[in-house]
């Protein structure tokens, strides 16, 4: 019960202090909308909104989670308020989950901004929303853990931002969002299969456009493996670098 109280209050504090701030709310809405409009204008009507939707959702989650988490944690480390959490009688695992949960929820909300926008133009009733939500949650969790991994390695806020981009942009181009994986150069294909976003996007593609490389079950399994691996790496690095 005591851990639950601490967990809930860390999450509530992060949501109030960071995610519910007006600049972040507006950024969370404007960013996915801008991407949607940009893609529509660029395609000049050749691509339908349904084809764009999986990519836009995946991008919104990825940017929504990683950018906020890496920066806020680095900021708390710099001001040493994170030390307050480390010396509190809650386990590092519970702390990690509480810290990433705010970013995950923020990413999930971001993902559905393009969906709301698309609902005005196309019929979305045929989509399996249950599996789509699972895919969005899995992308949000892996992205948040990646953000945390970046935060553990960065000492300054600007470093966290640079490291985030170092991960995010190659991932966007290699996960099959812009270029289908079968059209990627042979040398890049194995890298694509090592990225969690590839599997998340594949589920979204399957649910929204009906075309996917893997079965949803296989992609979910791989995403869960990524989550466990990233969670383990985050815990190991926090214990190694922050409780040195």
């Amino acid at each position, binding site marked *: 019960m005591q851990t639950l109280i601490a967990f809930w209050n860390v999450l509530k504090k992060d949501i109030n202090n960071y995610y519910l701030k007006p600049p972040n709310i507006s950024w969370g809405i404007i960013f996915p909308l801008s991407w949607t409009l940009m893609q529509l204008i660029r395609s000049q009507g050749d691509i339908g909104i349904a084809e764009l939707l999986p990519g836009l959702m995946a991008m919104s989650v990825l940017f929504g989670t990683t950018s906020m988490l890496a920066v806020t944690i680095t900021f708390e480390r710099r001001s040493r308020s994170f030390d*307050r959490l480390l010396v509190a009688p809650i386990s590092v695992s519970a702390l990690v989950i509480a810290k990433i949960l705010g970013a995950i929820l923020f990413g999930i909300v971001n993902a559905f901004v393009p969906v709301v926008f698309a609902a005005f133009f196309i019929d979305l009733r045929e989509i399996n929303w249950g599996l789509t939500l699972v895919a969005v949650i899995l992308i949000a969790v892996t992205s948040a853990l990646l953000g945390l991994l970046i935060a553990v390695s960065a000492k300054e806020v600007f470093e966290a931002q640079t490291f985030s981009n170092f991960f995010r942009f190659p991932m966007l181009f290699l996960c099959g969002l812009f270029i289908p994986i079968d059209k990627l150069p042979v040398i890049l294909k194995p890298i694509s299969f090592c990225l969690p976003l590839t599997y998340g996007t594949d589920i979204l593609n399957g649910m929204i456009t009906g075309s996917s490389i893997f079965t949803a079950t296989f992609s979910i399994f791989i995403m869960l493996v990524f989550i466990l691996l990233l969670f383990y790496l985050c815990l190991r690095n926090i214990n190694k670098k922050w409780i040195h």
Partner: protein
Amino acid sequence: MGIVNVTNLKKMYDEFQAVNEISFSIEQGEIFGLLGPNGAGKTSTINMMIGLSRPSGGHILIDGIDAVKDIKKVQRIIGIIPDENNLYNEMNGFDNLCFCASLYGMRKAEREKRATELLEQFNLTFAAKRPFKAYSKGMKRKLTIAAGIIHNPKILFLDEPTTGIDVESARQIRKLILDLKKQGKTIFITTHYIEEAERICDRIAFIVNGRIVKTGTVTELMESIEREHKIKLQLDSSIKELKEELEHNFVNCRIDISDKNSCLIISKERIALSPVLQLLDSKGISVYEAKEIKPSLEDVFVKITGIEASKLEIEKAGK
């Protein structure tokens, strides 16, 4: 056996040994001070005791719990006041305290009651709804201390509690620390303010280059150095010409003429004043004041550690 027992504690950072097999114990209800210059190993020691750092060797036993193996259990009964005011800038004083209480699993009604009590105790009620970033340095320090005791811990760890704040706030904080002691708290404090350690600590350990060189009460530490008796005389004129004669007549005394109208009589034995006064009177010199100069803890620190007091003074200015 004390409530805190540290045995052969050491900390290595690569090749550098920050803490070198130190041992000490703290009795329940006492204020124990770790006094030393910057880089002596004070923060490394406190960090190992509170779980922010892992020891490279040795044992820490806090209230019977092995702090190296089971730090989360220890963290339930200790309160930590770091050297920096690390509360959340955007949150107000009341919310900051409530949030810190929640980290110890306190329920809403309980934490709000305790936060209100502490704001009152620390004279911060007027600023309860003000964001932490709008607090003055002294107010920030007080709220940080309040956050450290919000869960009513048995043992308190204070890292440089009065560094960087004004004299009045420092005085109030020292009073608060003494009040906490009266409430039965055991307090571990690190400082490089010698007067602070002397004023509030029951026992003090001098730490230099990662080693504890001496531990004791202020009286024990004072007695541990060879004591010299010193009497300062205020005169109506200079006695420069009489120095040799005085030293000749009083063989066990040394005369130090520091300025024109005063002198210092130094002896390993107690100084009988009347023969000195008689001699000075016979030479037509009036004595206005005679004052015994007692050694300070600073003198003891310098004598034991070999570190010049000026080095600590520079640190104070730097901080």
